[in-house]
């Protein structure tokens, strides 16, 4: 027990609760609602696909799996850099925190960039969400609608994540985080890994199945 904790030992303190500090519990609770949000979208995807199997093209026929597999690789790498940033500040390594956060931002931004590039390429080939304008070689309009809705909402989450990471980096540059106080980095990491986790599921069911 450190000195700070020893001082607090005699102050009245609330019930034990869940042994996880507020911000972290709040982030976990928020992520649960995100789980339900993506479940709703995935559930809709499954029922639409069951009802209209002919509207789905074979994997790789319309979508560029190689490009996305590379993108998946980058997102997994960004997860490891994020967790390294957290490990760094846990040991009070300020330089490491900034370095790894920057790496995560670069990888996250690259992911969004590649996704936008992918969207543009797909749209050029007539793969669009609008039912009346769908003109891709294979598949049907629901393929396009579900693809853009699911990957689009994930992309939006990554974009928000990158913005929050930049915010976290600015705070880190100002020396806001210390060995004793790093909750901001930890909950940022939780969100970021969750986004990665969602992508793992989406990549499989949207691109590979």
């Amino acid at each position, binding site marked *: 027990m450190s000195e700070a904790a020893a001082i607090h030992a005699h102050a009245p303190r609330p019930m034990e609760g*869940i*042994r*996880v500090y507020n911000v972290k*519990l709040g982030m*976990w*609770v928020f*992520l*649960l609602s995100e*789980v*339900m949000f993506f*479940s*709703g979208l*995935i*559930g809709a995807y*499954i*029922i639409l696909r*069951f*009802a209209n199997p002919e509207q789905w093209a074979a*994997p*790789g026929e319309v979508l560029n*799996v190689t490009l996305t*597999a590379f993108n*998946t*690789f980058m997102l*997994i*790498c960004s*997860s*490891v850099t*994020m*967790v*390294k940033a957290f*490990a760094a500040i846990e040991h009070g390594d300020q330089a490491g925190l900034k370095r790894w956060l920057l790496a995560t931002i670069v990888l996250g931004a690259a992911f969004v960039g590649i996704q936008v590039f992918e969207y543009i390429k797909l749209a050029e080939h007539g793969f669009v969400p609008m039912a009346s304008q769908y003109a891709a070689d294979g598949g049907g309009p629901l393929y396009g609608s579900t693809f853009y809705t699911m990957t689009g909402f994930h992309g939006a989450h990554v974009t928000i994540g990158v913005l929050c990471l930049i915010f976290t980096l600015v705070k880190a540059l100002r020396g806001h985080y210390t060995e004793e106080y790093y909750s901001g980095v930890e909950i940022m*990491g*939780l969100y970021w*890994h*969750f986004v*990665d*986790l969602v992508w*793992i*599921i989406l*990549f*499989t*069911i949207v691109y*590979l*199945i």
Partner: protein
Amino acid sequence: MANKKPNYYLVWLYLLVLTIAEVGVAFLSGLPFEVLVFILLSLAIWKAALVAMYYMHLRFEPPRLVIIALAPLPLAVLITIVVVTMEVF
């Protein structure tokens, strides 16, 4: 919580191998569709579990938080199954 930190690079390697395995199974195996779906979903859940357990540190959290974190999963599965059942019947 003086826990042993996992080797994050090892987990990363693990995820990478599983991803390659996924893409490989999807395009090269030639298995029937149902088997393929089962294998791919299992691999995806495996990867998701790795991220949750090691990167999100769920393995090192108090059990009460783990229970909270897993709470919505039955509901998520429930809606998917029932919606699909509707379609199949």
